Protein backbone atom coordinates (compact mmCIF):
# COMPACT_ATOMS: atom_id res chain seq x y z
CA UNK A 1 0.00 0.00 0.00
CA UNK A 2 2.73 2.41 1.06
CA UNK A 3 6.27 2.02 -0.16
CA UNK A 4 9.20 4.32 0.51
CA UNK A 5 12.34 3.52 -1.44
CA UNK A 6 15.59 5.04 -0.21
CA UNK A 7 13.87 8.30 0.65
CA UNK A 8 15.88 11.25 1.92
CA UNK A 9 14.28 14.53 2.93
CA UNK A 10 16.46 17.54 3.53
CA UNK A 11 14.81 20.79 4.63
CA UNK A 12 16.45 23.94 3.29
CA UNK A 13 17.48 25.35 6.65
CA UNK A 14 18.68 22.31 8.52
CA UNK A 15 22.10 20.73 8.54
CA UNK A 16 21.13 17.09 8.73
CA UNK A 17 18.32 15.41 6.78
CA UNK A 18 14.94 14.95 8.52
CA UNK A 19 14.69 11.53 6.83
CA UNK A 20 17.86 9.78 5.86
CA UNK A 21 17.75 7.07 3.22
CA UNK A 22 14.62 5.41 4.51
CA UNK A 23 12.95 2.35 2.97
CA UNK A 24 9.70 1.19 4.50
CA UNK A 25 6.85 -0.86 3.19
CA UNK A 26 3.35 -0.98 4.66
CA UNK A 27 0.90 -3.61 3.35
CA UNK A 28 -2.76 -3.02 2.73
CA UNK A 29 -4.75 -3.39 5.94
CA UNK A 30 -1.74 -3.15 8.22
CA UNK A 31 -1.63 -1.15 11.48
CA UNK A 32 1.78 0.41 12.06
CA UNK A 33 3.07 2.52 14.92
CA UNK A 34 5.79 5.02 14.16
CA UNK A 35 7.70 5.98 17.26
CA UNK A 36 10.87 7.86 17.97
CA UNK A 37 12.18 10.90 19.79
CA UNK A 38 11.05 14.41 19.06
CA UNK A 39 12.48 15.62 15.77
CA UNK A 40 13.27 12.15 14.45
CA UNK A 41 11.27 12.66 11.25
CA UNK A 42 7.88 11.06 11.94
CA UNK A 43 5.79 14.01 10.86
CA UNK A 44 8.02 14.48 7.84
CA UNK A 45 7.23 10.88 6.87
CA UNK A 46 3.52 11.70 6.97
CA UNK A 47 3.98 14.93 5.05
CA UNK A 48 5.69 12.99 2.28
CA UNK A 49 2.76 10.56 2.01
CA UNK A 50 0.35 13.49 1.69
CA UNK A 51 2.65 15.11 -0.85
CA UNK A 52 2.73 18.16 1.39
CA UNK A 53 6.47 17.85 1.01
CA UNK A 54 8.41 16.13 -1.74
CA UNK A 55 11.43 13.92 -1.05
CA UNK A 56 14.88 15.25 -1.84
CA UNK A 57 15.84 11.79 -3.02
CA UNK A 58 14.10 8.45 -3.46
CA UNK A 59 10.56 7.50 -4.37
CA UNK A 60 7.24 7.20 -2.56
CA UNK A 61 4.42 4.96 -3.78
CA UNK A 62 0.88 4.87 -2.46
CA UNK A 63 -1.58 2.29 -3.80
CA UNK A 64 0.81 1.61 -6.67
CA UNK A 65 1.14 5.26 -7.68
CA UNK A 66 4.47 7.03 -7.76
CA UNK A 67 3.77 10.31 -5.96
CA UNK A 68 6.47 12.14 -7.88
CA UNK A 69 4.75 11.22 -11.14
CA UNK A 70 1.27 12.41 -10.12
CA UNK A 71 0.26 15.61 -11.86
CA UNK A 72 -0.38 18.43 -9.48
CA UNK A 73 -4.06 18.69 -10.39
CA UNK A 74 -4.46 15.03 -9.47
CA UNK A 75 -3.02 15.52 -6.00
CA UNK A 76 -6.43 16.37 -4.46
CA UNK A 77 -7.69 13.00 -5.69
CA UNK A 78 -4.81 11.27 -3.92
CA UNK A 79 -5.49 13.14 -0.72
CA UNK A 80 -9.15 12.24 -0.74
CA UNK A 81 -8.15 8.59 -0.42
CA UNK A 82 -6.00 9.42 2.60
CA UNK A 83 -7.37 10.51 5.94
CA UNK A 84 -4.99 12.42 8.14
CA UNK A 85 -4.96 13.56 11.76
CA UNK A 86 -2.40 16.36 11.88
CA UNK A 87 -0.22 16.92 14.89
CA UNK A 88 -1.41 20.53 15.04
CA UNK A 89 -5.01 19.55 14.17
CA UNK A 90 -5.34 21.96 11.24
CA UNK A 91 -9.00 22.58 11.73
CA UNK A 92 -10.53 25.35 9.65
CA UNK A 93 -10.93 28.18 12.16
CA UNK A 94 -13.92 29.65 10.36
CA UNK A 95 -15.93 26.46 10.39
CA UNK A 96 -17.67 24.75 13.29
CA UNK A 97 -16.75 21.25 14.39
CA UNK A 98 -19.56 19.79 12.27
CA UNK A 99 -18.61 21.89 9.25
CA UNK A 100 -15.00 20.86 9.57
CA UNK A 101 -15.97 17.22 9.44
CA UNK A 102 -18.55 17.85 6.73
CA UNK A 103 -15.90 19.51 4.62
CA UNK A 104 -14.08 16.21 4.09
CA UNK A 105 -17.34 14.78 2.76
CA UNK A 106 -18.23 17.74 0.58
CA UNK A 107 -14.85 17.49 -1.01
CA UNK A 108 -15.57 13.96 -2.22
CA UNK A 109 -18.96 15.10 -3.53
CA UNK A 110 -21.35 13.62 -0.97
CA UNK A 111 -24.83 15.12 -1.02
CA UNK A 112 -26.19 17.30 1.74
CA UNK A 113 -28.64 14.72 3.16
CA UNK A 114 -25.88 12.12 3.43
CA UNK A 115 -23.61 14.63 5.09
CA UNK A 116 -26.31 15.70 7.50
CA UNK A 117 -26.77 12.09 8.52
CA UNK A 118 -23.15 10.98 8.82
CA UNK A 119 -21.51 13.95 10.53
CA UNK A 120 -23.38 13.83 13.85
CA UNK A 121 -22.86 10.07 14.00
CA UNK A 122 -19.14 10.41 13.60
CA UNK A 123 -18.88 13.29 16.08
CA UNK A 124 -20.69 11.27 18.69
CA UNK A 125 -18.32 8.36 17.99
CA UNK A 126 -15.46 10.56 19.17
CA UNK A 127 -17.53 11.81 22.12
CA UNK A 128 -18.43 15.27 20.91
CA UNK A 129 -22.22 15.17 20.85
CA UNK A 130 -23.62 18.58 21.72
CA UNK A 131 -20.50 20.42 20.55
CA UNK A 132 -21.18 20.24 16.81
CA UNK A 133 -21.69 23.96 16.43
CA UNK A 134 -18.62 25.15 18.30
CA UNK A 135 -15.78 26.81 16.47
CA UNK A 136 -12.33 25.30 17.07
CA UNK A 137 -11.33 28.10 19.43
CA UNK A 138 -14.35 27.27 21.55
CA UNK A 139 -13.22 23.70 22.11
CA UNK A 140 -10.68 22.29 24.54
CA UNK A 141 -7.42 20.91 23.16
CA UNK A 142 -8.59 17.33 23.36
CA UNK A 143 -11.92 18.17 21.78
CA UNK A 144 -10.19 19.80 18.84
CA UNK A 145 -8.05 16.72 18.46
CA UNK A 146 -11.13 14.53 18.37
CA UNK A 147 -12.67 16.72 15.67
CA UNK A 148 -9.47 16.17 13.70
CA UNK A 149 -9.78 12.41 14.20
CA UNK A 150 -13.41 12.48 13.10
CA UNK A 151 -12.55 14.43 9.98
CA UNK A 152 -9.76 12.00 9.11
CA UNK A 153 -11.89 8.87 8.98
CA UNK A 154 -15.33 10.22 8.10
CA UNK A 155 -14.89 9.64 4.37
CA UNK A 156 -13.65 6.06 4.87
CA UNK A 157 -10.22 6.55 3.35
CA UNK A 158 -7.96 3.78 2.06
CA UNK A 159 -5.17 4.95 4.31
CA UNK A 160 -5.44 6.67 7.67
CA UNK A 161 -2.45 8.66 8.84
CA UNK A 162 -2.58 9.77 12.44
CA UNK A 163 0.11 12.04 13.85
CA UNK A 164 -0.21 11.84 17.64
CA UNK A 165 -3.98 11.48 17.65
CA UNK A 166 -4.00 11.10 21.43
CA UNK A 167 -1.38 13.66 22.42
CA UNK A 168 -3.95 15.91 24.09
CA UNK A 169 -6.23 13.20 25.44
CA UNK A 170 -6.55 11.61 28.83
CA UNK A 171 -5.93 7.85 29.02
CA UNK A 172 -9.63 6.88 28.98
CA UNK A 173 -10.46 8.97 25.92
CA UNK A 174 -7.25 7.75 24.30
CA UNK A 175 -8.39 4.18 24.69
CA UNK A 176 -11.73 5.08 23.10
CA UNK A 177 -9.93 6.60 20.13
CA UNK A 178 -7.63 3.59 19.86
CA UNK A 179 -10.63 1.24 19.80
CA UNK A 180 -12.06 3.38 17.03
CA UNK A 181 -8.84 3.24 15.00
CA UNK A 182 -8.69 -0.50 15.57
CA UNK A 183 -12.24 -0.92 14.30
CA UNK A 184 -11.46 1.21 11.27
CA UNK A 185 -8.39 -0.90 10.66
CA UNK A 186 -10.47 -4.09 10.79
CA UNK A 187 -12.63 -2.80 7.92
CA UNK A 188 -9.49 -2.94 5.75
CA UNK A 189 -8.12 0.57 6.16
CA UNK A 190 -4.36 0.82 6.42
CA UNK A 191 -3.48 2.78 9.56
CA UNK A 192 -0.20 4.56 10.19
CA UNK A 193 -0.05 6.10 13.62
CA UNK A 194 2.67 8.26 15.11
CA UNK A 195 2.68 8.22 18.89
CA UNK A 196 4.70 8.85 22.00
CA UNK A 197 2.30 6.93 24.22
CA UNK A 198 4.12 3.83 25.43
CA UNK A 199 1.03 2.37 27.09
CA UNK A 200 -0.95 2.36 23.88
CA UNK A 201 1.83 0.78 21.87
CA UNK A 202 2.44 -1.85 24.49
CA UNK A 203 -1.22 -2.71 24.77
CA UNK A 204 -1.96 -2.94 21.07
CA UNK A 205 1.01 -5.08 20.15
CA UNK A 206 1.17 -4.15 16.48
CA UNK A 207 4.03 -3.54 14.11
CA UNK A 208 6.35 -0.83 15.45
CA UNK A 209 8.77 1.20 13.32
CA UNK A 210 11.18 3.25 15.36
CA UNK A 211 12.92 6.26 13.86
CA UNK A 212 15.93 8.03 15.25
CA UNK A 213 17.50 11.04 13.63
CA UNK A 214 15.80 10.22 10.36
CA UNK A 215 16.79 6.58 10.17
CA UNK A 216 14.82 3.40 10.87
CA UNK A 217 16.42 1.88 13.93
CA UNK A 218 13.82 -0.82 14.59
CA UNK A 219 11.04 -2.47 12.60
CA UNK A 220 9.30 -5.11 14.62
CA UNK A 221 6.02 -6.98 14.32
CA UNK A 222 3.93 -7.07 17.48
CA UNK A 223 6.45 -4.72 19.08
CA UNK A 224 6.49 -2.68 22.26
CA UNK A 225 7.42 0.93 22.87
CA UNK A 226 10.84 1.01 24.34
Amino acid at each position, binding site marked *: MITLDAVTKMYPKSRRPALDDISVQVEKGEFVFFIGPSGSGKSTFIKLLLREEVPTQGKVWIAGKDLAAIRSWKVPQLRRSIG*CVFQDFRLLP*NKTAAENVAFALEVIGKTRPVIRRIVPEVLSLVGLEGKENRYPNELSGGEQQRVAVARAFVNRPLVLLADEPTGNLDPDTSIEIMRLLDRINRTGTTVVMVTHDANIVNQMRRRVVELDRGRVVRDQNRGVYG
Partner: protein
Amino acid sequence: MRAKFVLSEAATGLWRNVTMTIAMIITTAISLALLGAGGLLYVQIQETKDLLRNKVEVMVFLKDDASPQDKKALEEKFRDDSLVRDFEFESREQAHERFKELFKHSPDFVAGVSKQALPESYRVRLKNPGDYSALADEYKSEKGVSRVSSQQETVSQLFAMIDAIKNTTFIVAVMQAVAALLLMANTIQVAAYSRRREVSIMKLVGASNWYVRLPFVLEAAIAGLIGALLAWLGLVVAKVMLIDKALKPIFTSGLIPVIEWSDIMMTGPILAMVAIVVAGVTGWSTLRFYVKV
Protein backbone atom coordinates in the same frame (compact mmCIF):
# COMPACT_ATOMS: atom_id res chain seq x y z
CA MET B 1 -19.37 20.60 -7.88
CA ARG B 2 -22.67 21.99 -6.78
CA ALA B 3 -23.37 25.66 -7.29
CA LYS B 4 -25.35 25.81 -4.10
CA PHE B 5 -22.42 24.69 -2.02
CA VAL B 6 -20.03 27.12 -3.64
CA LEU B 7 -22.45 29.98 -3.21
CA SER B 8 -23.13 29.21 0.42
CA GLU B 9 -19.38 28.91 1.01
CA ALA B 10 -18.94 32.33 -0.56
CA ALA B 11 -21.72 33.84 1.52
CA THR B 12 -20.43 32.49 4.82
CA GLY B 13 -16.92 33.49 3.81
CA LEU B 14 -18.06 37.05 3.26
CA TRP B 15 -19.85 37.11 6.56
CA ARG B 16 -17.07 35.59 8.62
CA ASN B 17 -14.37 37.89 7.29
CA VAL B 18 -16.44 41.02 7.71
CA THR B 19 -13.38 43.17 8.09
CA MET B 20 -11.91 41.97 4.84
CA THR B 21 -15.26 42.17 3.09
CA ILE B 22 -15.88 45.73 4.17
CA ALA B 23 -12.38 46.67 3.17
CA MET B 24 -12.88 45.06 -0.20
CA ILE B 25 -16.22 46.78 -0.78
CA ILE B 26 -15.02 50.22 0.28
CA THR B 27 -11.89 49.98 -1.80
CA THR B 28 -13.77 48.79 -4.83
CA ALA B 29 -16.41 51.46 -4.43
CA ILE B 30 -13.91 54.27 -4.17
CA SER B 31 -11.73 52.96 -6.98
CA LEU B 32 -14.61 52.43 -9.32
CA ALA B 33 -16.19 55.78 -8.52
CA LEU B 34 -12.92 57.43 -9.47
CA LEU B 35 -12.67 55.33 -12.58
CA GLY B 36 -16.25 56.14 -13.55
CA ALA B 37 -15.80 59.85 -12.93
CA GLY B 38 -12.62 59.84 -15.02
CA GLY B 39 -14.34 58.01 -17.83
CA LEU B 40 -17.37 60.30 -17.83
CA LEU B 41 -15.14 63.35 -17.89
CA TYR B 42 -13.24 61.98 -20.84
CA VAL B 43 -16.38 61.19 -22.82
CA GLN B 44 -17.66 64.64 -21.90
CA ILE B 45 -14.69 66.42 -23.31
CA GLN B 46 -14.72 64.33 -26.44
CA GLU B 47 -18.33 65.41 -26.93
CA THR B 48 -17.45 69.04 -26.35
CA LYS B 49 -14.92 68.75 -29.12
CA ASP B 50 -17.41 67.18 -31.51
CA LEU B 51 -19.91 69.89 -30.66
CA LEU B 52 -17.39 72.55 -31.44
CA ARG B 53 -16.29 70.90 -34.67
CA ASN B 54 -19.83 71.15 -35.93
CA LYS B 55 -19.94 74.80 -35.07
CA VAL B 56 -16.97 75.67 -37.23
CA GLU B 57 -18.11 78.06 -39.90
CA VAL B 58 -16.31 79.92 -42.65
CA MET B 59 -17.55 83.46 -42.96
CA VAL B 60 -17.51 85.06 -46.39
CA PHE B 61 -17.80 88.82 -45.86
CA LEU B 62 -19.27 90.93 -48.61
CA LYS B 63 -18.07 94.30 -49.78
CA ASP B 64 -20.35 97.19 -48.89
CA ASP B 65 -21.05 97.57 -52.58
CA ALA B 66 -21.75 93.92 -53.39
CA SER B 67 -24.62 93.70 -55.90
CA PRO B 68 -27.54 91.25 -55.76
CA GLN B 69 -26.03 89.55 -58.84
CA ASP B 70 -22.80 88.97 -56.96
CA LYS B 71 -24.74 87.39 -54.15
CA LYS B 72 -26.70 85.15 -56.52
CA ALA B 73 -23.51 84.01 -58.22
CA LEU B 74 -21.97 83.22 -54.87
CA GLU B 75 -24.98 81.29 -53.67
CA GLU B 76 -24.94 79.18 -56.82
CA LYS B 77 -21.29 78.47 -56.40
CA PHE B 78 -21.90 77.41 -52.80
CA ARG B 79 -24.66 75.09 -53.87
CA ASP B 80 -22.45 73.33 -56.38
CA ASP B 81 -19.45 73.17 -54.10
CA SER B 82 -18.64 69.66 -52.80
CA LEU B 83 -16.91 71.07 -49.73
CA VAL B 84 -19.96 72.95 -48.50
CA ARG B 85 -22.56 71.34 -46.31
CA ASP B 86 -24.86 74.34 -46.08
CA PHE B 87 -24.71 78.09 -45.95
CA GLU B 88 -26.71 81.02 -44.74
CA PHE B 89 -26.90 84.68 -45.57
CA GLU B 90 -26.46 87.10 -42.71
CA SER B 91 -27.73 90.65 -43.08
CA ARG B 92 -26.31 93.61 -41.19
CA GLU B 93 -29.18 93.41 -38.72
CA GLN B 94 -28.62 89.73 -38.09
CA ALA B 95 -24.91 90.32 -37.73
CA HIS B 96 -25.56 92.98 -35.17
CA GLU B 97 -27.96 90.74 -33.26
CA ARG B 98 -25.48 87.96 -33.24
CA PHE B 99 -22.77 90.32 -32.20
CA LYS B 100 -24.82 91.53 -29.29
CA GLU B 101 -25.67 88.00 -28.32
CA LEU B 102 -22.11 86.79 -28.59
CA PHE B 103 -20.68 89.65 -26.60
CA LYS B 104 -23.50 90.19 -24.22
CA HIS B 105 -21.01 89.90 -21.38
CA SER B 106 -19.21 92.97 -22.73
CA PRO B 107 -22.05 95.40 -23.29
CA ASP B 108 -19.65 98.31 -23.37
CA PHE B 109 -18.19 97.10 -26.63
CA VAL B 110 -21.56 96.31 -28.08
CA ALA B 111 -22.66 99.81 -27.30
CA GLY B 112 -19.74 101.20 -29.21
CA VAL B 113 -20.42 99.25 -32.39
CA SER B 114 -23.08 100.57 -34.73
CA LYS B 115 -25.18 98.34 -36.95
CA GLN B 116 -23.57 99.82 -40.04
CA ALA B 117 -20.11 98.87 -38.83
CA LEU B 118 -20.84 95.19 -39.41
CA PRO B 119 -20.69 93.87 -42.99
CA GLU B 120 -23.08 91.42 -44.65
CA SER B 121 -21.77 87.90 -44.89
CA TYR B 122 -22.36 84.29 -45.80
CA ARG B 123 -21.89 81.77 -43.07
CA VAL B 124 -20.75 78.51 -44.65
CA ARG B 125 -20.64 75.22 -42.82
CA LEU B 126 -18.31 72.60 -44.23
CA LYS B 127 -18.77 68.90 -44.73
CA ASN B 128 -15.36 68.42 -43.24
CA PRO B 129 -14.20 71.14 -40.83
CA GLY B 130 -10.60 70.49 -41.91
CA ASP B 131 -11.22 72.06 -45.29
CA TYR B 132 -11.63 75.63 -44.17
CA SER B 133 -8.42 77.00 -45.61
CA ALA B 134 -9.20 75.39 -49.00
CA LEU B 135 -12.55 77.10 -49.01
CA ALA B 136 -11.07 80.42 -48.01
CA ASP B 137 -8.63 80.28 -50.93
CA GLU B 138 -11.47 79.45 -53.28
CA TYR B 139 -13.72 82.36 -52.42
CA LYS B 140 -11.53 85.19 -51.28
CA SER B 141 -11.17 86.67 -54.79
CA GLU B 142 -14.75 86.17 -55.96
CA LYS B 143 -16.61 89.21 -57.04
CA GLY B 144 -18.30 91.11 -54.18
CA VAL B 145 -16.30 89.32 -51.51
CA SER B 146 -14.29 91.57 -49.25
CA ARG B 147 -12.63 88.95 -47.09
CA VAL B 148 -12.97 85.35 -46.03
CA SER B 149 -12.51 84.70 -42.38
CA SER B 150 -11.03 81.27 -42.24
CA GLN B 151 -11.01 81.25 -38.45
CA GLN B 152 -8.06 78.98 -38.92
CA GLU B 153 -5.98 80.36 -36.13
CA THR B 154 -8.88 80.69 -33.74
CA VAL B 155 -10.15 77.21 -34.38
CA SER B 156 -6.79 75.56 -34.21
CA GLN B 157 -5.98 77.35 -30.97
CA LEU B 158 -9.28 76.37 -29.48
CA PHE B 159 -8.84 72.79 -30.59
CA ALA B 160 -5.31 72.69 -29.23
CA MET B 161 -6.66 73.78 -25.89
CA ILE B 162 -9.45 71.25 -25.93
CA ASP B 163 -7.03 68.55 -27.01
CA ALA B 164 -4.83 69.46 -24.10
CA ILE B 165 -7.74 69.17 -21.69
CA LYS B 166 -8.83 65.97 -23.37
CA ASN B 167 -5.40 64.43 -23.11
CA THR B 168 -5.17 65.47 -19.52
CA THR B 169 -8.51 63.95 -18.63
CA PHE B 170 -7.49 60.87 -20.58
CA ILE B 171 -4.28 60.58 -18.62
CA VAL B 172 -6.16 61.24 -15.40
CA ALA B 173 -8.79 58.65 -16.32
CA VAL B 174 -6.11 56.11 -17.18
CA MET B 175 -4.27 56.82 -13.96
CA GLN B 176 -7.45 56.40 -12.01
CA ALA B 177 -8.12 53.17 -13.85
CA VAL B 178 -4.65 51.97 -12.93
CA ALA B 179 -5.17 53.13 -9.37
CA ALA B 180 -8.53 51.36 -9.25
CA LEU B 181 -7.02 48.15 -10.56
CA LEU B 182 -4.11 48.36 -8.17
CA LEU B 183 -6.32 49.04 -5.18
CA MET B 184 -8.75 46.26 -6.00
CA ALA B 185 -6.04 43.76 -6.80
CA ASN B 186 -4.22 44.82 -3.69
CA THR B 187 -7.18 44.25 -1.44
CA ILE B 188 -7.95 40.91 -3.00
CA GLN B 189 -4.34 39.87 -2.56
CA VAL B 190 -4.42 40.80 1.08
CA ALA B 191 -7.63 38.82 1.46
CA ALA B 192 -5.96 35.83 -0.19
CA TYR B 193 -2.88 36.29 1.95
CA SER B 194 -4.94 36.32 5.14
CA ARG B 195 -6.48 33.05 4.05
CA ARG B 196 -3.37 31.17 3.11
CA ARG B 197 -3.46 28.90 6.13
CA GLU B 198 -7.13 28.12 5.70
CA VAL B 199 -6.61 27.34 2.04
CA SER B 200 -3.60 25.14 2.68
CA ILE B 201 -5.67 23.12 5.15
CA MET B 202 -8.45 22.71 2.63
CA LYS B 203 -6.02 21.48 0.05
CA LEU B 204 -4.49 18.99 2.47
CA VAL B 205 -7.94 17.56 3.07
CA GLY B 206 -8.23 16.94 -0.66
CA ALA B 207 -10.08 19.98 -1.94
CA SER B 208 -9.35 20.68 -5.59
CA ASN B 209 -8.22 24.07 -6.82
CA TRP B 210 -11.69 24.79 -8.12
CA TYR B 211 -13.17 23.94 -4.80
CA VAL B 212 -10.90 26.24 -2.88
CA ARG B 213 -10.71 29.12 -5.29
CA LEU B 214 -14.20 29.39 -6.67
CA PRO B 215 -15.86 30.46 -3.41
CA PHE B 216 -13.05 32.92 -2.86
CA VAL B 217 -13.33 34.34 -6.36
CA LEU B 218 -17.09 34.55 -5.94
CA GLU B 219 -16.64 36.36 -2.66
CA ALA B 220 -14.32 38.85 -4.28
CA ALA B 221 -16.74 39.24 -7.18
CA ILE B 222 -19.73 39.77 -4.91
CA ALA B 223 -17.83 42.30 -2.83
CA GLY B 224 -16.70 43.92 -6.07
CA LEU B 225 -20.25 44.03 -7.34
CA ILE B 226 -21.52 45.68 -4.19
CA GLY B 227 -18.63 48.11 -4.46
CA ALA B 228 -19.56 48.83 -8.08
CA LEU B 229 -23.13 49.45 -7.05
CA LEU B 230 -22.02 51.90 -4.38
CA ALA B 231 -19.69 53.60 -6.83
CA TRP B 232 -22.53 53.95 -9.27
CA LEU B 233 -24.82 55.35 -6.59
CA GLY B 234 -22.06 57.79 -5.82
CA LEU B 235 -22.03 58.93 -9.42
CA VAL B 236 -25.81 59.30 -9.39
CA VAL B 237 -25.60 61.43 -6.27
CA ALA B 238 -22.83 63.45 -7.91
CA LYS B 239 -25.05 63.97 -10.95
CA VAL B 240 -27.90 65.24 -8.82
CA MET B 241 -25.85 67.30 -6.41
CA LEU B 242 -23.00 68.56 -8.51
CA ILE B 243 -23.83 68.49 -12.16
CA ASP B 244 -27.47 69.43 -11.97
CA LYS B 245 -27.01 71.95 -9.21
CA ALA B 246 -23.60 73.37 -8.58
CA LEU B 247 -22.35 73.27 -12.14
CA LYS B 248 -25.50 74.59 -13.76
CA PRO B 249 -23.97 77.93 -14.77
CA ILE B 250 -21.36 76.11 -16.82
CA PHE B 251 -23.77 73.98 -18.74
CA THR B 252 -26.20 76.77 -19.44
CA SER B 253 -23.41 78.48 -21.36
CA GLY B 254 -23.98 75.73 -23.90
CA LEU B 255 -20.32 75.26 -24.74
CA ILE B 256 -20.04 72.06 -22.71
CA PRO B 257 -22.66 69.37 -23.20
CA VAL B 258 -24.53 68.30 -20.09
CA ILE B 259 -23.64 64.89 -18.67
CA GLU B 260 -26.83 63.02 -19.44
CA TRP B 261 -28.57 60.52 -17.23
CA SER B 262 -28.03 57.96 -19.95
CA ASP B 263 -24.26 58.39 -19.61
CA ILE B 264 -24.48 57.86 -15.88
CA MET B 265 -26.73 54.87 -16.31
CA MET B 266 -24.33 53.29 -18.75
CA THR B 267 -21.41 53.48 -16.33
CA GLY B 268 -23.26 51.12 -13.97
CA PRO B 269 -22.88 47.94 -16.00
CA ILE B 270 -19.39 48.93 -17.11
CA LEU B 271 -18.19 49.39 -13.55
CA ALA B 272 -19.85 46.15 -12.51
CA MET B 273 -18.10 44.32 -15.32
CA VAL B 274 -14.74 45.82 -14.46
CA ALA B 275 -15.24 44.84 -10.82
CA ILE B 276 -16.18 41.28 -11.65
CA VAL B 277 -13.39 40.75 -14.15
CA VAL B 278 -10.73 42.21 -11.90
CA ALA B 279 -12.00 40.31 -8.88
CA GLY B 280 -12.20 37.09 -10.86
CA VAL B 281 -8.80 37.26 -12.47
CA THR B 282 -6.92 38.53 -9.44
CA GLY B 283 -8.75 36.22 -7.10
CA TRP B 284 -8.10 33.20 -9.21
CA SER B 285 -4.46 33.84 -9.89
CA THR B 286 -3.46 35.26 -6.54
CA LEU B 287 -4.46 32.35 -4.34
CA ARG B 288 -2.02 30.11 -6.15
CA PHE B 289 0.71 32.52 -5.31
CA TYR B 290 0.26 32.28 -1.56
CA VAL B 291 -0.56 28.60 -1.21
CA LYS B 292 1.97 26.19 -2.55
CA VAL B 293 0.80 22.89 -1.11
